[in-house]
């Protein structure tokens, strides 16, 4: 085998491995439960695994209204800027994970269970599954009026 080919094989192997490692961070390859949220605005930077919030688990116990109206969670993954300071003040997850309604905050690893390095994302979202961006509708004249 000529050394040029060897070098080329090595080169493509390295690129392949790098590309493969890159895909590990891409949420599409995961097969997590629909509506699982990975929250990682700050966790990684502070040396914690990202937090994972399972919608399926919580919606068996609570209606959406409890979190998204009463507790003020905005409908946006990562959009609530949750921190531990807010949680121990009884806000966000801390409204329930306080040792009364649910187990309390010292069970760090129950929430901080994500694969390190994942970006904040919403698992299974339709937007992520589109091959091309959604179409732009034409400005059709309304003939019904």
């Amino acid at each position, binding site marked *: *085998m*000529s050394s040029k*080919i060897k070098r*080329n*094989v090595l080169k*493509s*192997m390295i*690129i*392949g491995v790098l*590309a*493969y490692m*890159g895909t590990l*961070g*891409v949420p*599409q*390859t*995961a*097969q*997590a*439960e*629909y*509506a*699982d949220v990975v929250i990682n605005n700050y966790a990684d930077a502070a040396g914690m*695994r990202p937090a*994972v919030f*399972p*919608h*399926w688990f919580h*919606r*068996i*116990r*609570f*209606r*959406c*209204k*409890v979190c998204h*109206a*009463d507790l003020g969670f905005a*409908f946006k993954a990562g959009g609530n800027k949750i921190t531990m300071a807010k949680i121990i003040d009884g806000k966000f997850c801390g*409204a*329930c994970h306080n040792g009364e309604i649910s187990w309390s905050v010292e*069970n760090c*690893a*129950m929430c*901080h*269970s*994500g*694969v*390190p390095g*994942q970006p904040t*994302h*919403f698992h299974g*979202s*339709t*937007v992520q599954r*589109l091959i091309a961006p*959604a179409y*732009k*509708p034409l400005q059709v004249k309304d*003939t019904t009026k």
Partner: protein
Amino acid sequence: MNQKTKAISLTCAVMMAAFMWNTQSHAAEVGEKEMPLMLAEVSSVNTFNVNLKKPKSRNLPPAEDGIHDPENEATHSLQHPLDAYKGLPPSDFGNYVDWVKAIDEGKIRPRWDRADPNSEPFVMDLDIVRPVKASVPDVVFPHRQHTEWLLCSNCHPAVFVPQRLANQISMSAILLGQKCGLCHGKVSFPVETKTCRKCHSKPKPADWEPPLSEATLKNPWK
């Protein structure tokens, strides 16, 4: 770089690497005889259904789902979705659970108030029919199923003005995560072929024909 462009460029990188790997390894096999690269192959570009990423299995336990870290001991204490779903009515999409039926049949009783298990939702039974210009059935928006889970203020007025047909809604907006797509395609049932008819549920009259486009009406060779 935003997440999407990153994902796209990564996918390109993988495909390029895979392609190079393919051609390179052929080069390696034939390299000793210094033969030119002239291998007829079935093109891998012309695949069927580029979007076919069938999950190998559904409802995987947290330790195998790709987003939980199996190195984290507590990951193994988390519940397996299938344990939680035992006895719940099934569906063909999303969590593969029919959440509306689960409540209607009393299989789950999610709390309406964080601390008070006896608090009941204010359910409003009002259907809004939205005629659709396309050939798909018209859309029926049912308030009942929504007010089982949500408060009026989750939708009114920020997402929808509370007035029939006052809101412009299109599939484009929905697929981008706006309007109905704020929840559908994220937590409530997803937007895919199997679910079109959940929203598009009011059949068109039997003699209904799609309106002809202006280009056809004006076509001199018609």
